[in-house]
């Protein structure tokens, strides 16, 4: 699965996710990636999210929307909201994976409870940062 979140000069957030699903999937199985609110969500008031992980759990936890809703209703930082969902809610469900997020101020956020997640961002000075573990 791959995904991206961005903030443009007009202050508009966007999120996108694309995937090949999971190896050996049957019966037309679909995970969270194409599910708005689970694998992808964007709202200028709160955040943009793209998720990757154990799709069935991400759907049940409405991961992307839940993170944005926590930012909006609890008025907490995006990183805290993401960690509440990924590191607590999903861990309690025994689900693995993570998200990349973007705040309305252009702050990139990562949260994952697996050993690694391919990820990267470009900071305010235009420097590129990438990481795996």
């Amino acid at each position: 699965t791959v995904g991206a979140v961005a903030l443009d000069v007009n202050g508009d957030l966007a999120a996108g996710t694309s995937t090949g699903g999971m190896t050996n999937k049957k019966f037309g199985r679909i995970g969270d990636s194409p599910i708005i609110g689970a694998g992808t969500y964007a709202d200028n008031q709160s955040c943009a999210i793209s998720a990757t992980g154990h799709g069935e759990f991400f759907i049940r936890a409405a991961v992307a929307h839940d993170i944005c809703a926590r930012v909006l209703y609890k008025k907490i930082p995006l990183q805290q909201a993401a960690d509440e969902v990924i590191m607590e809610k999903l861990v309690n469900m025994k689900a693995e994976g993570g998200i990349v997020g973007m705040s309305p101020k252009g702050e990139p956020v990562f949260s994952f409870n697996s050993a690694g997640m391919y990820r990267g961002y470009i900071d305010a000075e235009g420097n590129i940062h990438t990481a795996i573990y």
Partner: protein
Amino acid sequence: NKVAIAIHGGAGTILKSNMTPELEAAYHKKMKQALSAGYKLLKQGESSIKAIQATIMIMEDSELFNAGKGAVFTHHKTNELDASIMEGRHLNAGAIAGVTKVKNPITLAHAVMVKSNHVMLSGEKAETFAKKQSIEMVSPDYFYTERRWQQLLNVLKDDSDSTQLSEDEQQSVSQASPFMSVQRWPDDKKFG
């Protein structure tokens, strides 16, 4: 006027102890290329929607990631792709599921968002819509990669249901162990 972009390329059991320097470098290089493409558009004043499409398409075109060209195989030995996109200003969204002939699924998700009254389209009929929107189509063979094919054969073999594999496929699995070594593809247990 601040612009920003961030990406992920999948999560899971990815351990440094298993990663070769060459493969690690390849992932970093491709992620930097993808980020740069989106960031360049943002700096030019383009929309965040356009930027993330450009970024995701680069990763879809890479065999490294489980999306587009690098998609894994289903139980039925096909490649089925899903994608979604959403913009935060008006909460517009588009998604597609289970397509097999769309080169860049994110472009079709975007077309669903801006050129239809719907949010999600699926399967063959979604590809009919794609053709009407002049979305680039490819033969299903385009998505074949040896890495993902051997990955499926190994899973089928491990399922102990040998009837799922033809004689040639069983032979292919038995010959595939060097190619499919953990050292070469340490991220193959990451989730979809």
